């Protein structure tokens, strides 16, 4: 079975790197990353990853907008929000947008992959 490809879209390079390292080391997945919503959308179109980890608060295109654009492009890749917004009201709102799951920041690098697998029902 080929390794999963994960796209991480976050305006923070440090977080991209931590996430990539974490997923590579714990799950052996191929992780690519983008700095913002626009770049992320293009990458998603060209690379067709298995899942997208999408930050919510970004300066140019925020998470919900990026998700909308992806949905408009007909992309059905499962999206998981990675967010510092932890209020139940926010979570509820995000879930209604059609994301597959929400992971709060800060995340535990050792269990990040496991969380994603559970959310996407990968064995």
């Amino acid at each position: 079975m080929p390794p999963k490809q994960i796209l991480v879209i976050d305006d923070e390079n440090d977080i991209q790197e931590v996430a990539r390292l974490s997923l590579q080391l714990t799950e052996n997945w191929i992780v690519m990353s983008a700095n913002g919503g626009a770049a992320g959308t293009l990458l998603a179109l060209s690379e067709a990853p298995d899942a997208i980890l999408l930050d919510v608060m970004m300066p140019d295109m925020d998470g919900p907008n990026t998700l909308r654009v992806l949905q408009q492009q007909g992309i059905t890749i499962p999206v998981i929000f990675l967010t510092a917004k932890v209020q139940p009201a926010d979570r509820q709102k995000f879930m209604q947008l059609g994301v597959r799951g929400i992971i709060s920041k800060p995340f535990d690098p050792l269990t990040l992959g496991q969380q994603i697998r559970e959310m996407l029902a990968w064995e």
Partner: protein
Amino acid sequence: MRATWMHSIRGKLTAIIMLTSAAAMLLACALFVAQHIIDERHQLDMELQSFGRLIAAHSDAALTFNDRKAAEETLSALRAKPSFLAGRIYTDRGVPFATYSNGTSVAMPGVPRTDGIIRRDGRVEIFLPITRDGERIGTVYIVSDQQDLRNRLKTDAQSTAIILLVCLFAAFILSSRLQRSISGPVVELARVAGLVSRNKSFSVRAIHTGGDGDDEIDNLMMGFNSMLAELEQRDQKLVLYQTQLETTVAQRTAELTLANEELLAAKNAAEKAATINAKLARESALILNSATDGIFGVDLDGEPSFLNPAGAHMLGRALDELRGASIHTLIHHSDASGAPLPEKDCPLGLAMLRGEPYAIADDTFWRPDGTSFPTEYSATPMLDEDGNKAGAVLIFRDVTERRAIERLKSEFVSTVSHELRTPLTSIRGALGLLSSGLLGPIAEKGQRMLEIAVTNTDRLVRLINDILDLERIESGKVELTRGSVDAQAVMDQTREGLQSMADQAGVRIVTEPAAGSLWGDSDRIIQTLTNLLGNAIKFSPPDTTVTLSGTAGATDFTFCVADEGRGVPEDKLASIFQRFSQVDASDSRNRGGSGLGLAICQSIVTAHGGRIWAEKNDPAGSRFQFTIPLAVPSSVDASTIESIESATTEGQDSTAHLVLVVEDDADLARVMTAALENHGIRTFHATTGGEAIHLSRLHAPSLIVLDLGLPDIDGFAVVGSLRESATLGHIPLLVYSALDVGSADQSRLRLGPTEFLTKSRCSMAEFERRVLSLLATVPDRNKDEQNAA
């Protein structure tokens, strides 16, 4: 100038009588004398004629015979009367024939004149014919003076004068006596009148001396006396009146003096009071004027009665500009976004109108220029000394600044927490990867340091989460998602969440079975329990037990988390719920708490309407307890609920109104429900207050019929509890009580449209009519159905 006596009536009367008598007598005397003169003359004439005829008869022969001598002898017969002065006989040719004279020189006529008597020079002359056989043969002439007559007249006059004098004297005497009968009474009257005027006394009377007549004088006298009597009587009455008047005046004066003193005292008191009042008024005005809150009062009719300067400034209106339209139309017509608000059920209007205590934390008031400001306000009834409602006072505050600060604070907290979280994400991720050893082997001490860094990063994250959480709960931004919560379920969930932590700590968790349906937000209740249980585990030494239990009371469920740890010192039991308050400053470092856990618990419990407290456990450790309101009061048994379920669903029009009858007398309740069901109204029945609250929440009736005297909690408590509910707080209510409900109590018993009936004075028909009229105010049953579900 008249004589003095003429002034007296006597003098006048005497004079009148005397003059009258004198005039009458003089006239009589004059007539008498005249008559006498005429008689005397006549007698003289007759005498002259007699003598003439006698001489004529005796001298015819002498003439015939021309016997002068004889003629002269015949003439000398005249001597017999001395008054006859002379006589002559003439022949038929008129020649004197014989002459007689008594010596007095008398010029006798040469020729005879016409026959008859002639009076001349105080003398009387007569010429008489001498006839023979009817033939005139001569003339006789006699002249007589009237000395005799005069003498006789003189005598007559003298005697007449004497008679006159005698008569006058007699008349005077008589008049003097007789005039008394007239003048006497008049004089008496005058005397009495004089006395009356001199002595000012009406007690004298005119004495009636003259006879017993019935003439005008008598009448006058009698009239005068009766007038005096009358006057005297009046005078006496007047004196009496005067005396009475004096007494009355004296009395009144005394009263007035007394009243005056009282008035003076009252005036002094009033002045003192006025001074105090003025001082109070000044102070009140000062307070009202310096208050930064708006203070606005209305009287019983809802008419504005005062508005302080701060209020006028905020509203942009003077007191007068608040009259003429409802307060809602003027300042409360739209919400913050500018959308119009209906006046019906306007809480501000209702609060002002009903004068019920009412507080709103978040609303908008509008100014006449179209600007608005966010406000919080409270309406309070104004009660007079007797506790009667005298109006209402609205205290409001412009919370623009506070809102801005709150928003800033909230934004700040939110931003800070996000901004802190982002770098923490990288740190936590990097540290996690490092300490995992996945990036390569690390020396033991380095590994230890990395673990410390990870632990504290986690703690920092929790701290940020807790700050954000607390801020949101306390600012009211977090709405509790209330529902029916099973106590056992939340306890089990909490235990599951912490079991691994307990295992790591070597602490046993014991959950005692509990039954109860809570009214609350299950996530938040679990959060609270988790916090308490987590604390208990953290502060328990290994091989001890932490117990989680719960008991249902009448209206609340009490959770208890007990441990056998070192316990909370007694002086900290109350303050432990404050932020960052920990028993030992080193705890937060050692135990990884944020210091906000208990503060969050307290916020959550308070938001549920419960309370939280800590106490010493026996024999060691602490017990943390908190209460959450019950959805199903423990007094309701399951069979009641089932019977309601069937009553409310079976074979009935589900859009029909649903009425809850709260009545502990089963027979009366049966009568009432039967009466309502005749009108096609669905009913259900509660016998206790707890049951009423529970069933209301469960079925959201259109109307509640409430008896006040109930076995567990009274009607006031039922209403108080229902008021807290968003859906039940404004439904119609019919208070159907054994006793009259006073106005003060009435305001405590209102939900939505509320009416009051007294059982003893109300027929079943009236009861039905009231229920139907109240149900007419309920618009839509379907909405209620949804709420019930």
